[in-house]
């Protein structure tokens, strides 16, 4: 693979980079081992134990049982129908359907449960380490480091993280589209009874909605693209979508951006502010607040100048010369200030995101800090 244009053109540099990666990996492993030897204190008071592991997730068992009962209810059209309703089983009742859920608990709760286990009844809910979730935290931490390693250079660990995230996310959005769109909006519209019985018992439907055939038909035409012979039919759904949204966006943008933004300009350029006096009677004219008035008037004028000059910058059919050129130049200045402000504001959010990732590594994985009392 060519390495043109990067600091790493040279095979010796390349070799040195590979050696460096090995060293970094060794250092990381050594630090993890050290972390395990040091251990951390879990729980408080008498229940405190020293735990040499870290990045562990603890769960508590919770049994759920359900019983059903038959009843007759009046349907919307007045006829009586048999309904089977489910409710949680009362203590002592034998459930018809049951399963176990596992809820996350803190390390402190786990330590307390370990201590109390000796004299607790056999039916007390089990508190234990969840290995799938612990493995998850470790996997997440290693993937976090793998992505960060891209800053150093493209490398096999990053490529692994990349192939995992592409596969998972493509699958994820397809599943979300299936359960959140296809099932309620397509199956729920065209075969409501079947959908209600097998997929979405909470579906409320007033019968078959024939409008559901429109997207189904468009979808079938689109899938024609899979066959070379009828592939040309696939442009009709595209034309439908692009045409539809061209119409919708045309109206929306003129209404909510063009007209509404012009409307915001109905602001006076001269503003007179009065000093706010505590308890002053409204009828008594308070003295003029000169600083406030001049500031507000100046702001209004600067906003007007800005809007007009930036708009002037966008004129395409006139050369930017003479008065228009000068106005457009002021417009560019306004744009640059806008961009600088936007940039400055965004930095804050980006650093917060990075901080959140570091917090995950230090808190959930390495147990170095504990701001929320989880362990």
């Amino acid at each position, binding site marked *: 693979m060519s390495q043109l244009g990067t600091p790493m053109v040279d095979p010796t540099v390349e070799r040195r980079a590979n050696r460096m990666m090995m060293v970094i990996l060794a250092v990381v492993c050594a630090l993890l081992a050290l972390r395990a030897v040091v251990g951390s204190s879990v729980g408080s008071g008498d229940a405190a134990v020293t735990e040499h592991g870290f990045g562990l997730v603890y769960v508590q068992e919770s049994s759920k049982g359900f019983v059903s009962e038959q009843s007759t209810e009046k349907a919307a059209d007045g006829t009586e129908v048999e309904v089977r309703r489910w409710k949680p089983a009362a203590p002592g009742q034998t459930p018809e359907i049951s399963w176990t859920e596992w809820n996350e608990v803190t390390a402190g709760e786990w330590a307390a449960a370990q201590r109390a286990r000796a004299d607790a009844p056999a039916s007390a809910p089990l508190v234990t380490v969840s290995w799938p979730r612990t493995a998850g935290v470790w996997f997440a931490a290693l993937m976090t480091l793998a992505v960060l390693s891209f800053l150093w250079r493209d490398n096999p660990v990053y490529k692994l993280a990349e192939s995992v995230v592409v596969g998972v996310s493509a699958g994820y959005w397809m599943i979300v589209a299936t359960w959140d769109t296809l099932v309620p909006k397509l199956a729920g519209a065209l075969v409501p009874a079947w959908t209600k019985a097998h997929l979405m018992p909470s579906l409320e439907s007033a019968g078959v909605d024939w409008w559901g055939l429109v997207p189904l038909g468009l979808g079938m035409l689109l899938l024609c693209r899979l066959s070379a012979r009828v592939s040309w039919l696939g442009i009709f759904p595209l034309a439908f979508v692009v045409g539809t949204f061209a119409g919708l966006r045309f109206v929306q943008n003129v209404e909510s951006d063009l007209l509404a933004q012009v409307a915001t300009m109905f602001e006076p350029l001269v503003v007179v502010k009065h000093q706010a006096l505590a308890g002053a009677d409204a009828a008594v004219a308070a003295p003029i607040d000169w600083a406030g008035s001049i500031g507000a008037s100046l702001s209004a004028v600067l906003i007007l100048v800005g809007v007009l000059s930036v708009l002037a910058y966008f004129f395409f059919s006139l050369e930017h010369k003479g008065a228009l050129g000068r106005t457009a130049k002021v417009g560019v200045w306004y744009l640059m200030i806008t961009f600088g402000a936007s940039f400055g504001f965004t930095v804050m959010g980006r650093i917060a995101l990075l901080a959140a990732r570091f917090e995950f590594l230090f808190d959930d994985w390495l147990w*170095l800090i504990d701001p929320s009392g989880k362990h």
Partner: protein
Amino acid sequence: MSDRPNESFLARLDRIDRRWIFLMMAIAVAGPIIWVGVTGRTFPETATPAVQGAFDAIERLPEGSKVLVSFDFDPASAGELQPMATGFIHHCQLRKHRIYAMTLWAPGSPLIGATLADVIGNDPSYRYGENFVDLGYQAGNEGVMKQVGVDFPKAFPNDSKGTPLARIPMMQGITRLSDFDILISVSAGYPGGKEWVQYGVSPTLTQGHRLPFVAGSTGVQTPQMIPYYPVQMSGILGAIKGAAEYESLVNAKASAPGETVPAKYQEAQRRMAPQLFGHSLMVGLILVGNVIFFAGRRKGAAE
């Protein structure tokens, strides 16, 4: 870089491998996190007018006012926005307002339950259905906002657990958006605060009285929201800084001086330490970059 031995220090600095900058940023952010995590100390915050405006808008309402909170964000933006959501709910709880929580972002619905449980938790004076309700997620973006404006029960026929609104005591008398006393939106993008102004708040003006509106927004979105303050919005919390300022206002009201504030109400303030060092690094980099630039230009002119 040994290929140009006669190069000046500044010129070499100009061609610095950007990975050194990456390393500096990593240290500037990670260091303070550990420091704050170990010592538990945070920086003091003074509220800017937009944040004070948001605080006052909620503070000003009489006890038991109806507050609609829209959680329009997902876990990806929770780093910036969760402290705001927690702060708003905490403030409403202190003022004993009635809380109506909803979301227009599908991934936002679990966040409502978690936030309400975290803040209101075991407060005996807060009973579900009487003092707070979780209305859950409704698909349809600004369509829902328009619907909420004219017919609230049609937009939200039941709460997140499927209970019809008619059976929820605190929903009595809520027919449309303007029946609420204030609207709070914590949003990470579309649909969010901007759409609430356009489709939710602006129409209430034509109905006679303006619905007070307070927004919490990410750093990226804040510049787009600013044009609406203070006319359409009573206040705005911009990015983690806004959240930290608001947190300190609410905490000052909640606890006496010297009393320890629970860690969950200081999330944003804790995150300001990495911000401080990160911003300082950025400012330093811009300065150094320009020193290099001017030095290079003078040298160029001299030759």
